């Protein structure tokens, strides 16, 4: 039953699987994002309160959800690496951090652009916005800590520890709109009960979300290959792999 888990601890196996997945993930991501763009910009009706400005949801929500998902992936991989001393776990965490940081930046910028016409300001020290900014700082701290040590193993361990501790911020970001008074609207799709959107608006959003997730998978696989190569440079299997 655990054979697949042990296989994932093998750098050559992970390198091969990651290389094989990239074109498929990119292809399906392009399809999902393409449909999401056409349906979200051209077919979905305007919102009765926000008008056409609501269409920013199709990039803001997937990027915000992805910033949280990537952090969770990074923390779980770091936890696995710390507990079972699996080097591939550190490689997954190192590969995830810059991707997650870029989507946290995207979520903050698109949220800011959406906030101006709706709230009258680009920025407010609101619980959701502030906790998302802290998420970005955590990504930066994890990346900085990893490269602050001369010994890569110590850097990996220190960054993994911070990633695991920092995961406490993920539920804070998600539930900030429930726990505190917030300018930000409540959850739209990731919540208990039915989503608060009609299907014509919801399907493009789900498609964009899926597309962003698949895109993350593809970029993660590319970066993971690089991280594995950087860690296994001297291994005999690398000669065959980079031919």
């Amino acid at each position: 039953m655990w054979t697949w888990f042990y296989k994932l601890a093998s750098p050559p196996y992970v390198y091969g699987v990651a290389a094989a997945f990239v074109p498929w993930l990119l292809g399906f991501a392009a399809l999902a994002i393409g449909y999401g763009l056409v349906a979200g910009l051209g077919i979905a009706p305007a919102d009765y309160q926000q008008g056409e400005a609501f269409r920013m949801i199709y990039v803001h929500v997937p990027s915000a959800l992805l910033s949280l998902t990537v952090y969770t992936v990074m923390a779980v991989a770091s936890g696995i690496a710390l507990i079972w001393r699996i080097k591939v776990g550190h490689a997954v965490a190192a590969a995830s951090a810059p991707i997650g940081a870029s989507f946290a930046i995207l979520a903050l910028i698109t949220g800011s652009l959406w906030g101006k016409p709706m709230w009258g300001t680009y920025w407010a020290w609101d619980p959701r916005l502030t906790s998302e900014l802290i998420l970005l700082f955590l990504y930066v701290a994890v990346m900085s800590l990893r490269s602050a040590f001369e010994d890569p193993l110590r850097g990996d361990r220190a960054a993994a520890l911070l990633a695991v501790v920092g995961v406490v911020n993920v539920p804070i970001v998600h539930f900030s709109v429930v726990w505190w008074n917030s300018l930000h609207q409540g959850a739209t799709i990731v919540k208990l009960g039915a989503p608060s959107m009609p299907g014509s608006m919801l399907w493009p959003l789900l498609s964009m979300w899926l597309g962003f997730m698949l895109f993350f998978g593809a970029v993660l696989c590319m970066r993971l290959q690089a991280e594995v190569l950087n860690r296994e440079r001297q291994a005999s299997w690398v000669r065959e792999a980079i031919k």
Partner: protein
Amino acid sequence: MTGDFWSMGGYARYVWPCYGIAGAVLAWNLWAAGRYLGAAKVRAARALAMASGEAR
């Protein structure tokens, strides 16, 4: 009709930069990952070449 689409009900200056920046972030991710992987392959090839040189 096309004009209505591009004006986004008066919110064009918020909606289109939002999509433009999203496109730029996706493109950067793909470019940076490709470059990082390429550089890792070059480093690995150099390390292997040096190792085989030393063996001789």
